[in-house]
Each structure stands twice: as structure tokens, then as C-alpha cells.
């Protein structure tokens, strides 16, 4: 049985992990992200993280990146040929209905219906992208 101290440490560890995406190092104190955003982003971490390509591509450098161009990630043909640049608007549309926005995408996911949650996810990715402790300059571009 854990005592209160170790339980608190465990909670901090998990929160830090969630903040970073599932396979990222912990930088809880410096993270320029909101709690709401990290909670919203938690739904992405089955496949994505900020700093690493996983089942899905990394999210560092996402805003401003041409779709299908993250180095080292094997995209679907549909995404590789999309030819758009991710900004808040295009990312919002994609998150709303990924499979309709990019037919043939590997992201077999119904989408995030709630615009506030989509905004929180995008806020989180944007904030992380501007935090050099999380996303070093150039990562994901």
C-alpha cells in the first residue's frame, strides 16, 4: 500500500506523462500548456506524442508543417498527397472529421465533435510547439 507521499509522486509522474504525450520526458514545471489542454490531448496519446513518431506522426512542428511531411514517418498516400499546410483552421477541420477531411487517412477515428475540445487540443499542440523545452526548434519540420 502506498503512503501519501509516494502516491503524490505517482500522481505527478502520471500527470507529467500525460502532459507530454505517452512516451515523452517529463517537464511539468516549465510546460506552457493548460491543464484543460493536456486533458484534451490525452485522447491523442494512444497513437501520437509530441516529440516522437509513433503509430501517428509527432506533433512538434505540426502547425505550419505541410501535411504528410514529418521526417521519418510513413504516411498514407492520401495524407502524403494532401498538399495542405496545417494551421488552426485546417487542423480543426481534420480533427472534426478526419476520415471525411482526408479520405484514405490512416487515422481511423470518428473525430472530436466538441469544438471546445478541438480548440483545447490545438492550443496544447501550439503551446508545446512554442516551448523549446518540449519541442526543440526544427523538430517535426
Amino acid at each position: 500500500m502506498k503512503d501519501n507521499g509516494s502516491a503524490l509522486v505517482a500522481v505527478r509522474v502520471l500527470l507529467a506523462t500525460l502532459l507530454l504525450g505517452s512516451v515523452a520526458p517529463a517537464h511539468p514545471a516549465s510546460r506552457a500548456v493548460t491543464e484543460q489542454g493536456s486533458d484534451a490531448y490525452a485522447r491523442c496519446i494512444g497513437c501520437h506524442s509530441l516529440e516522437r513518431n509513433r503509430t501517428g506522426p509527432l506533433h512538434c512542428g505540426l502547425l505550419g508543417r505541410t501535411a504528410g511531411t514529418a521526417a521519418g514517418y510513413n504516411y498514407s498516400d492520401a495524407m502524403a498527397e494532401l498538399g495542405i499546410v496545417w494551421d488552426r483552421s485546417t487542423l480543426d477541420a481534420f480533427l472534426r472529421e478526419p476520415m471525411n477531411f482526408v479520405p484514405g487517412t490512416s487515422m481511423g477515428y470518428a473525430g472530436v465533435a466538441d469544438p471546445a475540445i478541438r480548440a483545447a487540443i490545438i492550443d496544447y499542440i501550439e503551446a508545446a510547439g512554442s516551448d523549446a523545452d518540449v519541442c526543440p526548434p526544427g523538430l517535426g519540420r
Partner: protein
Amino acid sequence: MVQRQDSKPMQPARRQFLFATAGAGLSGVVVARLAGIVRPAHAGEASEDDIRILNTALSAEREAVAAYNLGAATGLLTAGVKRLAITFRDHHAEHADLLERTVRAIGGQVSEAVQSYDFPKDDLQTQADVLGFAASLERGAVSAYSGAIPVFNDRELAGAAASILADEAMHWAVLRQALGQEPVPSAFIS
């Protein structure tokens, strides 16, 4: 519970496959039964999208197997926790096996397995680190499956995916409990 009578072939090869795999283990039986529940009213034909969804799920399951292998090999886990990690790893391996064989059975091409994973090994310094790492994977998997289930063209596949989701939600709850957290944090998870 509605159970399938398997005395005569009723379905295309893919469905026969799902039921044929049931003899391989308990999870196969559960998957087959859950799939059977939805067949009469909602069964459809698998689409190219279905194959992509299955392959994406397969990639995530393979990663989970590798992650649990990593955690189990750290030397940081107590014997009981290590047994738990290995059990969960084996569940993910069963999921991956079923997904892979299902993709093949419906005529799809199985995605290529990644040879190595870029896990943050340096950040796994304590048992709590390992548990938190695993918990975050399981939490994400719950969302991934809950987002995939509505978009399967073939509702039988959606039922099978739901049985995997249920298993991984239990993993997440157990891991949260082991971390000293509220095991089930809310009534709805998306």
C-alpha cells in the same frame, strides 16, 4: 446473450475466420461472441477504411507489447507488478494477433511491423514511472478504440474492437489503482 450456432457456414471468409480463431484462447471466444451479437441486424462488409483502421490498431498494439516488454525488463518492478505487466503485454499480443489475422482474412495487407521503438527509456527510473508510462498508453488506447468503433463499416468488426477496448480500459484502471489514483476517474471517457 445471443450466441452463434456454428453448425453451418453462414458468412464470408472473414467472419468464418473470426469464429475459427475463437478456439485459440479466451479472448478469441469473447471477441467471437461479441461479434456474434451484432451480426444479425448490423453486419456489413469490411471496407478499405476498415482495413486501415485495423492496421492502425495493430500498430498501436504492437507498440504496447514492446512497451510492456521494456517495462518488464527494467528491473524496477516488484514481482507482482511485473506479473501484471506481462499479463497485460500478453493481452496486447493477443489483440495484435487477432487484428493481424483479421486483416489478412478480409483480404487486406498487414502493416509492416516496426523494428524498434523510440521509447523514453531514460525517463523510466522508478516503478511509478513505468506504471505511469503504461497507464498513459492504455488511456490513449481507450480513446483510440472509442473513436474507431463508430467508423467501422462492418459492425461486426466494431463489436470485436469494443471487446478490446473493454480489456484495455481495465488495464488502465488497474494501473491507476497501482499508482494510488482513483482507478476510474469519470463516468465517461472519450
